[in-house]
């Protein structure tokens, strides 16, 4: 049986791997089949991760995390966890390809999944004009009009990034001010290619087989209007990914895994959680990494005492 299984491969998961591997615990990190590296894989330049004064590309940063984790003996499995049994002294983790792994401790670092708009035809038009990844898909909208939905940092980043390609970027936000950081918001507001549409939300999607436009609804007076765009980039936030562990460990009212105080301890002994899946507030690469370190040290401590 193994000492540690880590579920997740973002900054939290890999940091937990680096620490537990350095402690000689030979962690097994289950990285997922197609989302290895997590959210940062969808970003471009990361300017606020300490230690990289020139900035670093998100995928490059995650490649570094992984290299460092592997250097100390982390074993990585490229598969998706489909079920877990965390209650007993032996924790059982099953993957999509049918492998079963057992360990004394499990560190849950499953992060958060992007939120959907919840409008009709969203699924059908995903990949056909509706996108959650400007860095993946922006390229295809050269000299076309696109819109970004959202008011946080990721919406600002996507809007700015898209101006490299698109002729015009509408930034649709349901309030009358952004919750993004000042530097990101100012950059978007100062960009001549970006036009902000305040107090509005997307009510309908149009186009067949590809997106050609959207219907907007004003959140103040309820009036609707049409906007012709060929791309719609959704950046309205994330929800913690807790489906795997729901019913086994306690989840907070806000939907995050509950941990004890400043630790990573969940309501089950030997099960620890870190990163965006426990964090309703900060959700930065650096805070996720720090929280991965906490989980590794908590797991190490638990193993010493059991």
């Amino acid at each position, binding site marked *: 049986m193994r000492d540690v299984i880590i579920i997740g491969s973002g900054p939290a998961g890999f940091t937990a791997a680096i620490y537990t591997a350095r402690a000689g615990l030979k962690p097994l990190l289950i990285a997922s089949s197609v989302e290895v590296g997590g959210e940062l894989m969808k970003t471009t330049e990361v300017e606020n991760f300490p230690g990289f004064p020139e900035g670093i590309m998100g995928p490059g940063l995650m490649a570094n995390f992984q290299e460092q984790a592997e250097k100390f003996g982390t074993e990585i499995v490229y598969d998706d966890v489909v079920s877990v049994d965390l209650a007993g002294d032996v924790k059982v983790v099953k993957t999509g390809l049918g492998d079963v792994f057992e360990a004394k401790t499990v560190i849950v670092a499953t992060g958060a999944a992007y939120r959907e708009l919840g409008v009709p035809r969203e699924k059908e038009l995903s990949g056909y004009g509706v996108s959650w990844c400007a860095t*993946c898909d922006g390229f*295809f909208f050269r000299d076309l009009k696109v819109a970004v939905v959202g008011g946080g940092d990721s919406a600002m980043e996507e809007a700015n990034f898209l101006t490299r390609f698109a002729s015009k970027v509408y930034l649709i936000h349901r309030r009358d001010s952004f919750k993004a950081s000042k530097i990101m918001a100012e950059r978007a507001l100062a960009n001549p290619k970006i036009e902000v549409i305040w107090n509005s939300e997307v009510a309908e999607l149009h186009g067949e087989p590809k997106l050609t436009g959207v219907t907007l609804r004003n959140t103040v007076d309820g009036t609707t209007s049409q906007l012709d765009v060929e791309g719609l980039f959704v950046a309205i936030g994330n929800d913690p990914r807790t489906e795997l562990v729901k019913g086994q460990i306690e989840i907070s009212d806000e939907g995050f895994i509950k941990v004890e105080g400043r630790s990573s301890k969940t309501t089950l002994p030997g099960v620890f959680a870190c990163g965006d899946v426990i964090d309703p507030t900060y959700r930065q690469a650096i805070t996720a990494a720090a929280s991965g370190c906490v989980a590794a040290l908590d797991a190490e401590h638990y193993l010493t005492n059991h």
Partner: protein
Amino acid sequence: MSAAKNVTTASFEADVLKNEKPVLVDFWAEWCGPCRQVSPILDQIAEEYGEKLEIVKVNVDEEQQLAMQYGIVSIPALQVFKSGQVVKSIVGAKPKSVLVNDLAEFLA
């Protein structure tokens, strides 16, 4: 690095449109993280089902015309061609089990 053949505008007709076997074209780019994640999965599928389905790659940076012609607006985009026609279109990186399932009619 993937073992799949790189197809260009010049070779597209011979390699894809006039191929006797169904061909899965993986439209991809260097800068696309999800493309890098799906690439080894496609290699595995090619290894296991190469007899039935040929898998090739089109780099959308180098072949913008082809990407435009086939209406690509999101990558990775996987399009299956049979007798010169697109008969299946899959967008986004998906786990192997899902891809094998989606492509079942071409792998049997």
